[in-house]
């Protein structure tokens, strides 16, 4: 069995002295793990860094095997953001969340495109909004998509301010006012398809975090990845030092 495809490295774990076991997100093979001979060696360590886009060749005797990867670098996203604390935190959070949430070997080409978009946007203005959209896409791909385009109660498409924590559907100002304490905030940038502000990104992360925890992580008795929480904390610090 053998295939070649481009993928984004989600995680890398040491195995023995010089080898690593990596997981990649590919368009055609989904989240796929593999063994890399010499992946922790000085010559290859920079290649197998989370966020890097690689062209990999997977080989295994049978499809069920862990198999081995060989790879070459396409884009060194990790090196590009090493000096940017917020972007690095975002990259680590995205990799950790996808790695923990996605089932193995189940193709999700839309998520691969979303991750590619995020990696390309990292460090540019408004990139955290792309991160929030990636997590919305993750929920969608896993079957728990949110309906943020029209009010669940009245059907209107304007003044959508809330999201029902039970159904994941948007609720308008008028319909949600009596229950505002029980509803989640819908940040305006999601409804209006704008870039948004730091506070709105934090609201967006709270929204996606709620549904990720409820539908994806809690059923598997797993917490949300700590790297995601560190990204939120970095964004909160960023909001106090910069208006975004």
């Amino acid at each position, binding site marked *: 069995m053998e295939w070649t495809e481009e993928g984004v490295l989600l995680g890398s774990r040491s195995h023995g002295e010089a080898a690593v076991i990596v997981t990649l997100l590919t368009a055609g093979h989904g989240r796929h793990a593999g063994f890399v001979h010499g992946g922790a060696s000085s010559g290859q360590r*920079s290649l197998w860094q989370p966020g890097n886009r690689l062209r990999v060749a997977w080989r295994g005797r049978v499809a069920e095997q862990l198999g081995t990867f060989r790879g070459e670098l396409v884009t060194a996203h990790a090196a590009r953001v090493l000096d940017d604390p917020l972007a690095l935190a975002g990259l680590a959070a995205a990799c950790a969340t996808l790695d923990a949430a996605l089932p193995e070997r189940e193709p999700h080409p839309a998520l691969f495109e979303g991750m590619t978009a995020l990696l390309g946007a990292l460090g540019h203005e408004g990139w955290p909004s792309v991160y929030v959209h990636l997590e919305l896409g993750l929920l969608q791909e896993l079957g728990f998509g949110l309906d943020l385009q029209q009010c669940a109660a009245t059907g209107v498409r304007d003044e959508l301010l809330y999201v029902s924590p039970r159904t994941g559907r948007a609720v308008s100002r008028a319909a949600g006012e009596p229950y505002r304490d029980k509803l989640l905030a819908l940040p305006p940038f999601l409804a209006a398809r704008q870039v948004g502000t730091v506070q709105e990104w934090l609201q967006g992360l709270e929204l996606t975090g709620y549904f990720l925890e409820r539908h994806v992580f809690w059923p598997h008795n797993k917490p949300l990845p700590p790297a995601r929480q560190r990204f939120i904390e970095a964004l909160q610090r960023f909001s106090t030092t910069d208006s975004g």
Partner: protein
Amino acid sequence: MNGPEIVRMIQLLAKLPGLGPRSARRAALHLLKKREAVLRPLAQALEQAADAIRTCTVCGNFDSVDPCTVCRDERRDSTTICVVEDVADLWAMERGHVFSGRYHVLGGTLSALDGVGPEDLNIDSLVARVRGGGVREVILATNATVDGQTTAHYVADRLAAFADVKLSRLAHGLPVGGEIDHLDDGTLSAAFKARRAV
């Protein structure tokens, strides 16, 4: 074929870095052949090390005294602390004679995959050292990896409250003897970012 003592010896040797079962057998055979010259002194040295070596409560280094020799050395610059991931990094810097200040060993890096969080690293003790006063600069010498730099940024955030303490990190870029056409894109990119006037 071999007695249980030899089998156990080979099994334990095979756990050492750089040794597999085959090389462990070779090492065991060599030790047994050189029983008086190598095996007994080695066994004594290992026993003494197991009894005497401890982790420095100040910096996390290994030494037979606590605080360690580096922390006790009055000639070293106590106003500068170099933060490293592992004792191996500390030893590498000492081998190179590149730094004459004090160290702090974190004991690893934050790692999403391995579930290593801030509470698993010696970060609180670093903050306490800085809070104790007398520190003018903290050099973050973690690896140029995603985990290493994520840890460095986290430590920098924890130390940001100490306004009078300068925070710096090691440069990234061209290695000595490195040829540009053999460098990976990431290193080249870092080298361009860190360029300076000549």
